[in-house]
């Protein structure tokens, strides 16, 4: 794995989204939702894991990684505990990121306020 590949794959993930923003009527919110769903699909199709082996955070830090973590959690939980894993696997595997962001948001809201926008 090389850092050059990490940078390149990460950059390509962002450029695709930028093209979608600039050239289509898709809103950023729709693109983010599209990216996490695509992450699940990339994992399901067996594309994500080989990409992660070469690019590391280049593919896991873009929102594909969030969807892929969800899919991996589901697959492992289904393998381990059967049907109940469909319900428990996904959010367990992504709990770290979600909990960290939510707690951070709450914690920072105790000390900071939004400031007025400037041009």
């Amino acid at each position, binding site marked *: 794995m090389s850092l050059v590949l990490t940078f390149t794959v990460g950059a390509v993930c962002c450029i695709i989204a930028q093209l979608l923003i600039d050239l289509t009527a898709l809103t*950023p919110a729709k693109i983010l939702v599209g990216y996490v769903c695509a992450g699940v699909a990339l994992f399901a199709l067996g594309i994500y894991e080989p990409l992660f082996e070469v690019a590391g955070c280049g593919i896991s830090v873009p929102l594909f990684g969030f969807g892929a973590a969800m899919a991996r959690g589901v697959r492992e939980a289904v393998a381990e505990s059967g049907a109940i894993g469909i319900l428990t696997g996904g959010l367990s595997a992504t709990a770290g990121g979600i909990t960290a962001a939510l707690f951070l948001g709450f914690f920072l809201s105790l000390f900071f306020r939004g400031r007025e926008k400037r041009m």
Partner: protein
Amino acid sequence: MKQLTKNEKLEIIKRHTPKSKTLRNCILAGLIGGTICLVAELSRRLYLYLGVNKDDSTLLASLTIILLSGLATALGFFDRIGRHAGAGTLVPISGFSNSVVSGAIDSQSEGYISGVGIKIFSVAGPVILYATVSGVIYGLIIYIIGGISAVI
């Protein structure tokens, strides 16, 4: 006065609406997005070096970006970078963190329940929802396929 049809109006508006500077936007998005991934990867290698296992170090790398972006949001300069970076800060986990933290620090004025509690999910909510929904659908598919192949 000549009455314009809806399509004629849309055509006139479109003709005068400036295009996004797509090339410039893409270069900035690629450079900044790539750099964020690079920072995450370097931190992941540091955690690996410190003896953290592979899965946890990947999570910790994402958490590093979440923390840095959250702080940048609270200190008021994430939006200044994001305005130029576009998808470069939106698509990496930094955008997720920014949406959570910006929703939270913007809404204490309506209280911690109806303000912060609701607005913290205003942008992140759809992402979490549809990731969960896709995960369940994927789970159903592998469970059913697993069942069929066991029978066969």
